[in-house]
């Protein structure tokens, strides 16, 4: 049964079976199948894209990871491919950067140094207008600052060029607003003349240049010319010719570097000097000033260095015991190489100099003297050396101070012989004795000498001691008068006349009264050192209370007691006078203030 069916199938479908077999072979043979598919692939793609536009997007998707992988795997291939493009671009970019830098420096110099710039700065200070604004007003005729290329129909931004930071609004919103304004003007005010073509925005100007598919909205600062408008209109037309497809393809809007570059080329600036000296490329004056300044600075610093070096050279050459061999500048420092005597003093040399020395023995007179001084180690003596002969002068404090060392001086290098002119130093006690022999000591003064100081003690009258002390100070460096009391004549006389000895009991003198008497005697004795003719007058008194006889008796008794006490204190009878005033009438009241003895000094 099945065999019959197979035979029947062969008879009826043998051609179809053969075709199916051929097709299977074709599908299984990959090379042949690929060949066949490739023949229709191009047409099939076109039909697919036509029927399904989204299909194309699958091919236009960028797989950034795939790119990175490809670059990593074929680094050299990419380098080889990009080098011919990047090389000239870099060169062009560097050239442009240098040109811009030179232009910027030129401009900066012009704005920084010229009288014009100073005038503008002054204007800016006095008027409050920003300096940049003044520069712009005075140097820039106009400047195209921003360009919007806007689709006519939707009002959407196709491309933008300019400083994005200067935008007050989102650039897309601005494009839409500009379109809305234009539509409003066109629709409401003037539909025939093509709508709005210019508007003023503060100190800026907005130009609208209509195109077939897109409008150019341009923000210009300054005073643009009609020529600029023509240029921009030409640019708008060129854009419509060169980018006609891009203007209708929304996929490329806001992401079209070529179109952006085209717009950036019409960000034009015209300076006021462009017309006058358009052939002028570089302003040489600032450069000339810089070069002169640099030369000036170079020569001045060179001169200063030379002068400094000359001063250091002189300083080193004049230093005894140092022989300069070379002086080399090393940065901010100098290195001095030379021979140095161990006794040479280099402390005064500037700290700019670093000394590199080799020891040697100098035979200069100053060095010989310094060496001798170091060896003798004696203070206060003067050492002079000349042609190898050393002379010592001054005073020595001890007799044995230098004799042995002096004898050995000739053993030192450079010393041929010595000349000792030292004198023995006098002690202060000896000097004082000699002084006192020539100048007698005033009475009551005690003069002593100890540890280089003269001490003057005691009590003395001013007229006697002052000339003596002046002489003493002239002869001695240190005179100590801290313990010396000097009195004036009138003061002492006054002191005595104001002294009163209260004496209620006329029969005896107590210890307290004795002390008062002693003070009076001391003062009188001092006065006597000045004038031997003086007399101390005593004035005994009574209050005359009671009987006259008794009072007068008491007066006499007080006078005698005080006189005796004065004589006992060392006064001579001739030195004392008494003046007794007796009572001639009695008083009723007791007055202790009148009971006592008063004193006076008489010549």
């Amino acid at each position, binding site marked *: 049964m099945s065999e019959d069916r197979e035979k029947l199938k062969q008879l009826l479908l043998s051609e179809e079976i053969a075709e199916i077999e051929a097709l299977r072979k074709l599908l299984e043979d990959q090379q042949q199948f690929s060949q066949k598919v490739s023949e229709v692939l191009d047409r099939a793609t076109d039909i697919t894209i036509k029927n399904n536009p989204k299909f194309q997007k699958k091919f236009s998707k960028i797989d950034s990871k795939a790119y990175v992988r490809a670059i990593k795997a074929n680094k050299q291939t990419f380098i080889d491919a990009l080098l011919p493009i990047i090389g000239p671009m870099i060169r062009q970019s560097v050239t442009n950067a240098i040109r811009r830098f030179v232009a910027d420096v030129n401009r900066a110099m012009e704005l920084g140094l010229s009288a014009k710039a100073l005038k503008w700065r002054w204007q800016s200070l006095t008027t409050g207008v920003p300096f940049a604004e003044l520069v712009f007003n005075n140097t820039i005729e106009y400047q195209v600052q921003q360009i919007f290329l806007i689709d006519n129909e939707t009002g959407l931004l196709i491309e933008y060029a300019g400083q994005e930071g200067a935008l007050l609004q989102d650039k897309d919103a601005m494009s839409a607003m500009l379109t809305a304004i234009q539509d409003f003007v066109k629709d409401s005010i003037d539909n025939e003349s093509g709508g709005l073509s210019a508007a003023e925005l503060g100190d800026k100007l907005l130009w609208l240049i209509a195109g077939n598919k897109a409008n150019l909205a341009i923000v210009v600062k300054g005073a643009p010319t009609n020529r600029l408008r023509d240029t921009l209109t030409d640019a708008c037309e060129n854009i419509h010719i060169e980018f006609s497809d891009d203007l209708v393809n929304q996929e490329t809007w*806001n992401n079209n570097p070529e179109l952006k570059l085209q717009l950036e080329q019409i960000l034009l600036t015209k300076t006021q000097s462009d017309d006058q000296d358009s052939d002028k490329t570089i302003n040489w004056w600032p450069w000339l000033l810089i070069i002169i300044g640099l030369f000036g600075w170079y020569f001045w610093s060179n001169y200063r260095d030379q002068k400094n070096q000359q001063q250091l050279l002189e300083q080193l050459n004049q230093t005894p015991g140092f022989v300069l061999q070379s002086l080399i500048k090393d940065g901010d420092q100098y290195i001095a190489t030379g021979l140095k005597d161990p006794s040479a003093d280099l402390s005064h040399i500037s700290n700019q100099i670093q000394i590199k020395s080799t020891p040697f023995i100098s035979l200069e007179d100053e060095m010989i003297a310094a060496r001798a001084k170091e060896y003798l180690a004696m203070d206060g003596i003067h050492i002079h050396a000349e042609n190898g002969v050393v002379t010592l002068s001054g005073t020595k404090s001890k007799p044995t101070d230098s004799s042995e060392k002096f004898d050995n001086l000739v053993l030192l290098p450079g010393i041929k012989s010595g000349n000792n002119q030292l004198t023995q130093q006098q002690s202060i006690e000896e000097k004082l004795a000699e002084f006192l022999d020539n100048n007698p000591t005033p009475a009551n003064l005690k003069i002593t000498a100890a540890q280089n100081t003269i001490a003057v003690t005691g009590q003395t009258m001013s007229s006697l001691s002052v000339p003596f002390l002046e002489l003493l100070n002239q002869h001695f460096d240190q005179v100590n008068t801290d313990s010396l009391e000097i009195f004036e004549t009138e003061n002492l006389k006054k002191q005595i006349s104001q002294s009163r000895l209260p004496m209620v009991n006329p029969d005896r003198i107590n210890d307290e009264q004795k002390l008062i008497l002693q003070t009076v005697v001391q003062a009188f004795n001092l006065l006597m050192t000045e004038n031997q003719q003086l007399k101390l007058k005593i004035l005994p008194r009574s209050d005359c209370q009671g009987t006259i006889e008794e009072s007068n008796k008491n007066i006499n008794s007080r006078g005698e007691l005080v006189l005796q006490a004065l004589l006992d204190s060392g006064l001579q009878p001739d030195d004392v006078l008494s003046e007794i005033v007796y009572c001639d009438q009695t008083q009723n009241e007791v007055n202790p203030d009148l009971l006592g003895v008063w004193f006076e000094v008489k010549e």
Partner: protein
Amino acid sequence: MKSKKICMIGRFAVGKTSLVDRFVKNHFAEKYQTTVGVAISTKIMDETTKLIIWDIAGFEQENHYKPYLRGAHGIIYVVDATEPESINTLDLILADSPELADKPAVCFVNKTDLKDDIKWQDSFDDKLNDIAKKTIWTSAKTGENVEDGFAELNKIIQ
């Protein structure tokens, strides 16, 4: 990033500007201020799309809104849930600008926060379904569905 032009259309005082303010600035002003001409706002929706929203002054006779509709990628019709007359205004607009019927559109039924004042009939839904692909109940005051409404239109116009 692609820019898409969206136009807000509707009777005056239905809340078009408030919806835009809520969506762009997340802000709602109680005081009513009428829009003169058109107000433009922008909002970035995602990495690829930026909406340029044209908030067109409320429809009245004699106002010149038609130029602003040119080239719109999408339309948002706005009606007032408390004012059925605002739906009739959409009829007038569509009659005046029949080309709008071909544009992708959504309809915002606004002021849903005024629950006691809502005057709505089922027939209104049918009418709006004829005009727009989707009807979304919104409140600019509370922000209800505003973001979602704009997102919905963004999805439709892609």
